[in-house]
């Protein structure tokens, strides 16, 4: 098959198969952070994704080299599209975003995390495709992410002078404001009249 776009969609089962196969293929410890739609698929909130996007980290160069060697084979074998892509490729992320990412489970030496949720939300707001916006609603509705944490992350990111590789801060602010309006209209965040800042409706999520 010549085109990634016509690879099969990755549903939860296919994602699971990929992670298991990866765990069996590498020997060195590796931290794999799922990003974007693959997080929603893993949470069972979305049926499938076109790409399994990830960020990988290892303590030594061996782990990443092994991943690089194994991925083409696994992609072909399992007919999935797996791409290295994280929020930091497009805009700044808060300090310690990876450290604050949620650990999910391990497959042999591969520890799987969900990339820092507030950063995922910010990158979705920055891109603002219709499906991104729907994903944000879903993550809030399901209590996966706390809106106050998103605002705190944005305050830190907004102050960053570097890392704006794809979007400018003012563009993101404009899109984020539109998103806040949409979330308020959906009753997913409320406006705190004292601070005029958006708070999660019905108190913070877990």
């Amino acid at each position: 098959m010549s085109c990634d776009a016509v690879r099969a969609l990755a549903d939860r089962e296919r994602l699971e198969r990929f992670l298991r196969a990866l765990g069996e293929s590498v020997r060195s410890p590796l931290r794999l952070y799922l990003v974007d739609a693959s997080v929603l698929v893993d949470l069972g909130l979305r049926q499938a994704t076109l790409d399994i996007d990830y960020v990988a980290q290892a303590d030594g160069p061996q782990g990443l080299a092994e991943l690089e060697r194994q991925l083409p084979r696994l992609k072909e074998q399992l007919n999935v599209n797996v791409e290295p892509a994280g929020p930091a490729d497009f805009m700044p992320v808060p300090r310690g975003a990876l450290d604050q990412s949620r650990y999910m489970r391990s497959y042999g030496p591969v520890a799987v995390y969900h990339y820092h949720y507030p950063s995922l939300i910010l990158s979705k707001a920055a891109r603002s495709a219709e499906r991104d916006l729907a994903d944000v609603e879903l993550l809030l509705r399901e209590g996966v992410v706390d809106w106050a944490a998103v605002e705190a992350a944005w305050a830190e990111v907004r102050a960053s002078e570097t890392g704006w590789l794809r979007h400018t801060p003012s563009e993101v602010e404009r899109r984020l404001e539109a998103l806040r309006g949409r979330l308020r209209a959906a009753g997913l965040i409320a406006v705190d009249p004292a601070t005029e800042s958006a708070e999660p409706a019905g108190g913070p999520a877990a």
Partner: protein
Amino acid sequence: MRATSGEAQAGAEWDRLAEALNRYGVCHIAPLTKPRGAVPSDPVGLLLRLAKASDVRLQEAAILLLLTHPKLAPAAQDAISRLGGVQRDRAMRRYIAASALQRMWRTRISLALGRPASEVLIPPAYLDILRLPPLEEDYGRATLRALAADEEARYGYDAWAGYTSLMDLFLAEIGLQGWGQRSDELRRRARTG
């Protein structure tokens, strides 16, 4: 080296169509020289000539024209009805791609163009002819994905990459001053019907 007459004709057509697009506020391409000859101003004529243009950037500009002015959708359908063969097939695909991309990026487009997100949606068309999923599925993405896969099978190029990079270009450009603003002449024509 002197240009052949075919190249000269293509260059002249580029200038005229790029100028016509600029007058519709579609500004990602520009004429190389002041166009000689009539610049098409009626939308059906423009869309017809875009479909027949030899330069792929002019052909694809029909997508950006529709995304910028979705009200031109009936004119696009009229133009397609006057085409035949591969030109018609490709024009239908570009129409569908515009419909799908508009649904995938509706909020972002409306923010950039300063228009309400409830603005006219490009009406679905040709989906049954090409046996594509409905535009409501996954905000148009399912349609675009199926369209691109079918197009790659039929014509051999990576249509998905083509559409997504065209959309990247569009999203980067529409925030710029003047995008989507029709020229005074077109506004006058619209007023007088």
